[in-house]
Each structure stands twice: as C-alpha cells, then as structure tokens.
C-alpha cells in the first residue's frame, strides 16, 4: 500500500467517524422532537450546542476545564511514576508478585470513589483529595500491565543483554523497559480512564472545583442543556489526554 493510499484510507476513516457522530446527534434530535425520547430527561442536541457559549461565559467553563485537566495531569504523572515503579517491583520480586498480584487485580475492580470520606479526612476538601482518589483508582491497571509487559519480554532479547554483559540497571533501561512500553501504555490509558471518571465523580460529590462541580450545580438548577454542555467539556478533557498519550506512545514506541 502506497503512502498516498494510506493517507486516503485514513481520511475516509476520519470522515466516516465524523459523519457517524453527526448522524447519531441528528437522530437523537429527531427522536426527541418526535417525542420518542423525553426532552425533560435528554435535552435537544441543538439546545446543548446553544448552551455551550452561555456556560463558557457565565459559568467560567474554561477555568473549570483547566482545573479538571490539571487534576487529571497530576494524577497521570503520579500513575506513571508510582505505577510503573510498583509494576517493575512486582516483576522483579517473585515473592512480592505472588503475594500481591491478586490483591492488586481485585483493587482494580474496587469502587474507590466510595472511599472519598476517608480521603477527605486525610487530605481535606481540596484538589489533593481529588487527585489522590483519581490516582488510587487508576493505579491497579498501570501496575498490572507494567508487570505483565516486563514479564512478556522475549527471553532472546534478555539473552542479548546478558551476552553483552549489561548491568541490571542497563538491562532494565535499555531492554526490559522499551520492550514493555506498549503494554505499559495500555495500562496508562486504562489508568487514565479510571482516574478521569473518579476525578469528575469526586468533584461532583464533594462539590469542589472543576467540571464535576459545575455539572452538579447545573443539574441542581435543572439546567439540562448546560449540564450536558459541561459533560461535553469532560469528554473534551478525555479526548485531549488520550490524544497526548497517543502522541507520547508513538514517539516512544516507533514503528514496531
């Protein structure tokens, strides 16, 4: 396949995605107008679009978006630093792995958000609480996928390192870590999903800062178009972080 054909295929795929999204929104609009969907539960998409400029001006959305994005960024950095390190420890020490792997996997399914009162006691009603809950919620997949990726490194690559007398540190930096990167990025993306859900959820629950608080306030005012408009900004946060993670992954794991 030539580069031109690939570009054309990618363009068609993107256009199909955009057309599908517009078609879905249009279908919802039609179904609501035809009274198939109750407009007191789901507002008209056209009303949501019209509400976006209003909430940007009146509700200071961009500042709230920046606040949520900052919390997600801190949680992501913590996930990458601590999660990858713990995953590496789990890989390195078999006893630790046998002792903890099941617990860590079980923790991935735990509804961490329900522990917010405990976090409030420890960190107070602050952005730190929100970041720490996001971090705790996203930690398990990063640990597990890091450990899994390191363990899946092909023995022959490790043997190449051994034959060249690499130190354990070089072996990790030059062979194990690069080999495990695709799996680590899967863990980071999963962790990011869990972190983001929990960050917005806790903002909503404790009514503190960010888009979650705005959604809470707008919902309590029964401003449904505004609420859904704010949810669009949460989706935008998710899209931005996914895009950045994808770019980072492409830069760090070229053409495998």
């Amino acid at each position: 396949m030539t580069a031109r054909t690939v570009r054309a295929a990618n363009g068609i795929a993107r256009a199909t995605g955009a057309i599908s999204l517009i078609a879905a929104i249009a279908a919802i609009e039609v179904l609501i107008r035809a009274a198939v969907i109750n407009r007191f539960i789901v507002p008209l998409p056209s009303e949501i679009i019209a509400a976006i400029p209003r909430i940007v001006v009146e509700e200071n959305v961009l500042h709230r978006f920046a606040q949520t994005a900052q919390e997600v960024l801190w949680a992501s950095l913590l996930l990458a630093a601590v999660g990858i390190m713990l995953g590496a420890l789990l890989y390195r020490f078999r006893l630790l792995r046998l002792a903890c792997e099941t617990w860590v996997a079980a923790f991935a399914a735990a509804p961490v958000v329900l522990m917010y009162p405990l976090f409030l006691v420890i960190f107070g009603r602050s952005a730190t609480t929100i970041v720490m809950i996001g971090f705790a919620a996203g930690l398990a997949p990063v640990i597990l996928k890091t450990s899994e990726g390191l363990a899946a490194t092909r023995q022959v690559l490790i043997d190449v390192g051994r034959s060249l007398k690499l130190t354990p540190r070089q072996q990790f930096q030059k062979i194990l870590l690069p080999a495990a990167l695709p799996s680590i990025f899967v863990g980071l993306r999963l962790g990011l999903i869990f972190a983001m859900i929990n960050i917005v959820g806790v903002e909503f629950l404790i009514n503190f800062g960010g888009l979650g608080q705005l959604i809470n306030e707008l919902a309590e005012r029964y401003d449904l178009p505004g609420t859904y408009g704010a949810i669009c900004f949460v989706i935008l946060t998710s899209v931005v972080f996914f895009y950045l993670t994808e770019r980072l992954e492409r830069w760090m794991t070229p053409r495998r």
Partner: protein
Amino acid sequence: MSPGETAASEARGAPLLEVERVSKRFATTDGAITAIHDISFGVAAGEFVSIIGPSGCGKSTLFNIIGGLVGDYDGRVAVAGETVAGTHPAIGMVFQEESTFPWRTVLDNVAFSLEIGGVSKAERQERAAHFVAMVGLSGFERRYPAELSGGMRQRVALARTLASEPRILLMDEPFAALDEQTRLLLGDRVLQIQQDLRQTMLLITHNLTEAVQLSDRVLVMSYRPGRLMRVVDIDLPHPRDSEVVSSDTFGHYVAEIWHDLRAEASRGIRDDESRVLEGRRA
C-alpha cells in the same frame, strides 16, 4: 582424537576457544537428563567450525554454555587459556530466534554494544554504519526491524554482534528460519566477513549443506546425551562461496556426514515417537 586429527590440530596452532570435557545434566519431572556428555574440542584463531547434530542432541545447550548463559556444568570453557565463567566480552553471540530490538532503527541496533560501551554518538554511528555496510544493508540504516525481511533482520543481529568486535563469534542456527536460497546467499556473506576479518566463528547448526559450505571443520554430535562422535576436516578451497555446493567434493562431504548422522537422527525420531505414545498411555 585420532592421530590424524591430533596432527591437524597441531597444524592449526593453539586453540583460541577450548571446550574441555563439558557435560550438563538437567533436572526434569521424569528425573535427571544428561543433555551433553564429555564434550571436548578447540577452535583456533581465524577458524570456522560448525557443530552439527540431530534435534535434541544438546547443540543449543552447548551454545549457551560456551556463551556463558548457562552455568552449573561439568568441565571447562576457556578463551585464550583463561577459564570463562558467565558471559565474556571475547565471545559474541548470534541467536537462532529473531533478536533485533524492534524499537531501534537498524543503525541504532548495530550501535547498541558501542552505546553500552560508552562510545560517543558520532563515533558509534560511524562504526555502526561500517558494520551495516559489511552485512550488505547500506541504505536501510534508518529503517526499523518491522520493515525488514527475516534474512535482513538476522543480518542486523549479525552486524550488532560484529560491532562489539568479539574474538569469537558464536552462532546458533542464525538462518534456520530462512528459505534455502536465502540461507545459501547469507552463507556467502558470512564467509566473506569471516575471510575479511579473519573472524573465529563457531556455528551450531542442523543443516548439512550450511555446515559444509561454511566450515573448516565440522564436529558431528550424537543424539541425547550429546557426545562428539566425529570431527570432519573440510578440505574445500578458500575463498569459498555458495558455488561450492555444486562440486563433487562438497557432495562427498555432505554424504559422509549424513552417513554418521542418519542413525542418530533416526534414534531421535524414534525417541520422540515413544515419548508421545507413553504420554498418551499416561
């Protein structure tokens, strides 16, 4: 060793690589298995030696012992008289399995050992480019392994090992996964490199043609436990290339080695079959 072989050994001079009475046993659920037993041979500087044997004769175990990847064996491995324990910078290894780093370009793969050795970026790129050219991959320096064929990837692995400038190049069936024609042509390339660098090479293989095409000597191993059955000196002219396979002498050597191997290979097949049947009964 026969008197003839002893005389030939003396003519080759003191061995650079010595393998003395090496045996290795593995513990399995069915009890201990002797993989190789009492293997001794030497490889002189600049010599190309192949070890050939049927599947399951312990060739790869011997490769790993000489390369220092497997310990806890009886006997001794020495390089230039110095006993080797573990991996040794004088021994470079090329593996049977595809072993290039998929996240590095061809040039960065080849420069890997130089990078580990702390060579400056400019110098290591220059030296790596030299070895890339040596294996015939000029123009592919910026490509990633995923963009190359299997034979090209094995050449990258070969260049990476050559770049570490080992005194002994140890290869474990590096072209086993390739088709016969590619294998013959890559054999030419290896021979050319060996003749240019006067590189000491030890090749582990199960391919008769490859062993005779490339080697000065072929060591024939028995089926499990692997023992050294016979040493065949290959008296074919140098410089040599894949044209040699059409000569009568070549065919004679292949037939001679196959004569020794046939009974052992049959024993291996029978052993495999009886193991499968026993497993089914159990």
